[in-house]
């Protein structure tokens, strides 16, 4: 058995489990009580670096919860879901599910969905760059080609349906909203929202999609042909305007590929 491996396992265990501290202290030179304090510096660094990564990924959740509560949540998360790799930008993906399981957060039932939105936004900022296709490419196609067409989308795109107005909630925590409206939340008349996370150029962005538009996008993301996807959206809302909805997808720069195929 490698001595170095034993040492590193004991060190890691001592940082995460108080009952494992004495075994580690026995490997160190100097007074045990002082070494226990010094070991705490490493524990604080590990927790602090995890917290900083989480704060970067979840700024609105952190603002909603406040400094103390978010730090406590981060500490619990660090204990329950340790980092598994050195790229801390990837740390925190399990936070939405973790929040959903926290009994003392039940008074904020929308927080898990908001966290899901923020994680998608965090990932969008790091997603591969893409080149949007212009609407004229679609407009130039014959009706037969259009019916069987499939669309490819930018890698940053995520569609998050929620029973809560998470897109509006997120937006009202942004500095631009604050500058215009102050810290006034107008969520009373917002119902469930479908949050669309995407990137415009370098900037990760959030939109709330109407249900029919969300249905269209979900069908296209699932690889359905355009005719099938448009039918699904019309079924959702008889007033659905196909051309307008498609134009919106292109004008937001979401579409990166037009893939010919057989009509359904």
């Amino acid at each position, binding site marked *: 058995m*490698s001595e*170095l*491996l034993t040492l590193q396992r004991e060190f890691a265990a001592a940082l995460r489990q108080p009952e494992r501290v004495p075994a580690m202290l026995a490997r*160190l030179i100097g007074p045990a009580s002082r*070494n226990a304090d010094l070991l705490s510096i490493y524990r604080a660094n590990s927790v602090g670096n995890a917290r900083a990564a989480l704060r970067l990924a979840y700024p609105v959740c952190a603002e909603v919860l406040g400094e103390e509560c978010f730090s406590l949540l981060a500490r619990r998360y660090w204990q329950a879901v340790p980092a598994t790799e*050195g790229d801390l*930008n990837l740390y925190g993906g399990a936070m939405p599910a973790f929040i959903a399981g926290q009994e003392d957060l039940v008074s904020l039932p929308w927080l898990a969905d908001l966290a899901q939105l923020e994680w998608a936004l965090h990932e969008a900022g790091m*997603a591969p760059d893409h080149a949007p296709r212009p609407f004229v490419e679609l407009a130039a196609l014959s009706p037969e080609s259009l019916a069987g067409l499939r669309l490819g989308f930018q890698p940053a795109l995520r569609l998050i349906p929620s029973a809560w107005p998470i897109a509006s909630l997120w937006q009202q925590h942004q500095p631009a909203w604050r500058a215009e409206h102050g810290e006034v939340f107008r969520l009373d008349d917002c119902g469930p929202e479908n949050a669309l996370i995407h990137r415009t150029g*370098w900037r990760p962005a959030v939109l709330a999609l109407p249900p029919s538009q969300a249905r269209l996008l979900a069908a296209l993301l699932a690889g359905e042909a355009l005719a099938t996807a448009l039918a699904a959206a019309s079924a959702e809302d008889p007033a659905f305007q196909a051309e307008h909805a498609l134009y919106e997808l292109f004008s937001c720069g979401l579409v990166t590929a037009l893939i010919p195929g057989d009509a359904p």
Partner: protein
Amino acid sequence: MSARHSRPRVGIGLRAPHYRELLGTLPALDFLEVHAENFFHAGGAVLAVLEAVRAHYPLSLHGVGLSLGSADGLRETHLDKLAALVERVQPEWVSEHMAWAAVDALHMADLLPVPTTDEALTRMAEHVDRLQTRLRRPILVENISSYLRYQDGGQGDLAFLAGLARRTGCGVLLDVNNLYVNAINHGFDALAELHSLPADCVGEIHLAGHSETPLGLIDTHGSPVCEDVWQLYRAAIAHCGPQPTLIERDTDIPSLAELLAEADQARCCLGAPVHV
């Protein structure tokens, strides 16, 4: 590892609060150093900033999470991402630490001390060899601040790094602040330790600040370089020559102007003309 450039070179760590000002003003600096892990993404704004910066400055890519000192091998995903970034931005230097962070499936997100044992040296040498082979270039390995001392291993960190350099051909990134912090905390003679490092293996020098606490000095990278560290830096230059020098600040990040003033101070120590 002696400098290819006759003119002494001074740089600063590039941190997010300075992106805009730095690209807008392009201050006279000889290189910029970035933490490799901040640029591991597939795309996005941060990578675009790095591409813009490297059009104006040579880059030093400083890894903080590869865990060269892990007993159970290098993490392949991390190695792949680092290699891809090196390929993409073609830095002038690549560096990592004499430290470990990963064991089994855990990554501790910190630089933890490696015992100066033969086994640790063998493992680190294997990992440095692999990294250098993969990157097709020599790397620099930095001494860290450590608050604890293991019973295993008796030699100093710099002697350990000298052994690593001998075995692998890597260079040493001498962090003068870390040397100072360890000397004060563990009560050894920093100058004697400095001289245990062969002069020709140093390829870069780091300067940073630390905090004084009741438990000793803590390496926070959150304050200006202190006078004692400047003094030790002058001794380091006398020992290993005017190596490329970095002003490093990771917390309580000051104005760009303040960092540039510290960079000028380093330039004075190196005997180089200060840019005006």
